[in-house]
């Protein structure tokens, strides 16, 4: 099986889906001739031409809205927001239109759009190129939000998102793009949206997280194993709607739960995960639910010292697991 990095899996999935279905097309800022700021759409313009790889003006609301309209009339658009930070002008189209069109149209309309965007910090991007904004969309029934951690999951889930008959936000951690490598089958496959995935079996502590933080958890787990602490790692993969069954099962398995997000804690995805556990696992818990998250600041600062303090890392995860283990 070939090994590729996270962003190559994005490109691979797009190429395969565009080849498989001529209704699939890509639109966004600099996605064509330049192949995207991070090169996620590299080679698509050359392979599929300007009719299916559309360089748009800087107009995020229109990129989303035009994509939504095209999706409603039977196309399968994949819209790129250059950074998730730039999605904010498009929130009205996504929440008011995409999320609600099926419900408000008596199920007559579908909106099979995929909106991709890189999120997250650790690349010195500063205030407007580092944010995690998934929680803005994570209380909007009608939307699905996928945030994969591995190249294998990226390919399978992006293909599933493109084929899904509902709007899917597909957020890719930009630090993972070239950092995270893994085996990816050359053949066609999809992975189920809405299903979490056990990335490591363990019996003492359960870590539930998503995106780049999955790797921090796996690295910490590896190290702690030598000390006799066995860590179970559940990767949410889809952060909205959540896979309640898998969360309950993972939390009940060990009775000690650590929830991790790079987003700030208040109002984040892991708050909802915590509520699910609290509602369902009271008698299985052996310790209070512990949350590890970014600090409550408006955005990731630029100075390297402050960015480092903001970002999570395997050491911080290790400390948190150890504290839970000692409880």
């Amino acid at each position, binding site marked *: 099986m070939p090994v590729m990095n996270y962003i190559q899996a994005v490109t691979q999935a797009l190429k395969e889906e565009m080849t498989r279905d001529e209704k699939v097309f890509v639109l966004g800022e600099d996605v064509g001739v330049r192949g995207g700021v991070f090169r996620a759409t590299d080679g698509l313009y050359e392979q599929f031409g300007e009719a299916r790889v559309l360089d748009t003006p800087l107009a995020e609301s229109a990129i989303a809205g035009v994509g939504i309209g095209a999706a409603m009339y039977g196309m399968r658009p994949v819209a790129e927001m250059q950074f998730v930070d730039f999605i904010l002008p498009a929130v009205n189209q996504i929440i008011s239109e995409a999320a609600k069109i099926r419900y408000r149209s008596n199920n007559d309309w579908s909106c099979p759009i995929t909106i991709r965007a890189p999120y997250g910090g650790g690349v010195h991007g500063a205030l407007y190129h580092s944010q995690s904004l998934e929680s803005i969309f994570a209380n909007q029934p009608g939307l699905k939000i996928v945030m994969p951690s591995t190249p294998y999951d990226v390919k399978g889930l992006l293909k599933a998102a493109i084929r899904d008959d509902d709007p899917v936000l597909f957020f890719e951690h930009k630090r993972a793009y070239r950092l995270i490598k893994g085996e990816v089958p050359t053949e066609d496959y999809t992975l189920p949206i809405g299903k979490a995935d056990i990335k490591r079996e363990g019996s003492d502590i359960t870590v539930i997280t998503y995106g780049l933080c999955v790797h921090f958890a796996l690295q910490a787990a590896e190290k702690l194993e030598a000390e006799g602490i066995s860590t179970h790692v559940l990767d949410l993969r889809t952060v909205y709607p959540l896979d309640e069954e898998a969360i309950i099962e993972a939390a009940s398995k060990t009775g000690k739960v650590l929830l991790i997000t790079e987003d700030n804690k208040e109002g984040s995805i892991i708050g909802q995960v915590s509520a699910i556990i609290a509602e369902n696992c009271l008698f299985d818990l052996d310790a209070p639910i512990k949350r590890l998250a970014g600090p409550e600041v408006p955005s990731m600062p630029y100075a390297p*010292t402050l960015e480092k303090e903001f970002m999570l890392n395997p050491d911080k995860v290790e400390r948190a697991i150890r504290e839970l283990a000692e409880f």
Partner: protein
Amino acid sequence: MIKTVKLPPQITEEKLVNLFKEMWLIRFFDEKVDEFFAKGMIHGTTHLCVGQEASASGACAVLEDRDKITSTHRGHGHCIAKGAEVNRMMAELFGRTTGYCKGKGGSMHIADVDKGNLGANGIVGGGIPLAVGAGLTSKMKEEGYVVLCFFGDGASNEGSFHEAINLASIWDLPVVFICENNQYGMSGPVKEMVNVENIADRAAAYGIPGKVVDGNDIIDVMNEVNEAVERARNGKGPSIIEAKTYRWKGHSKSDAKKYRTREEEKEWREKDPIGRLRKLLIDEGILTEEKADQLKQEAKKEVEDSVEFAKKSPEPSIDTLMEDIYA
């Protein structure tokens, strides 16, 4: 007295000489930043205005101290032209406590309250409504100041452009919208992203004046901006001025510039705004060759000194991460 060109009345020979040095300061600052990024001495991303010095310096030159500006992601030139200290700017790019944002902002977020610079902006088009808000304040409080709103050709396709300029036009607000058309929004050629020849033509849609100037000719910029500023100060409302120019460098540090030719770059380099002002000053007998070179060297030295200042400045302590969030 200058004989060959017309100048706004407040632009003295001395001021013109200062502007010549200021343009060199802007150029050396950005070339130094370019060098540091290439060497990995500073991180993240940056957007350089080398080649565009005349629009920043010329537009700000006709302002009074009390007047305000809003800037863009390509804002180092605007900051310097509105009187920012290069020491504090360079320190910000180094992520140091002595920087304009105490290291939290970096290249794209420098603001300078004392000098009336409401700030650079990491969001394209983000500053346009803010400029209109500043203009509204000037009118409501009868303070008589004018707001210069810098933005690029790319930003003119954002919804904020339309919403804000329409508002400024119906309320006759004292705002001058300066579009620095450097021909490309990242990789998107303005010819392909805008369906009118000039962005200034859009002024007709708001019933306000729209003028095109040679953005590489500081004299042309000063004359037209001065007229628009006077008009705004006299309560006659906003204008759009489009300065046609060119960024010599790529969009940001990671730009292979596949979307344009080396010949085109060469043609624009021949329209060097600093060289043109130098020639005028020498032809008019205001500067000798020696004096011109001396001013250039002085500007270079100021930038070198700013690097020393930045390097000696402390990095922010971790505690500052949680500061400046609420009043």
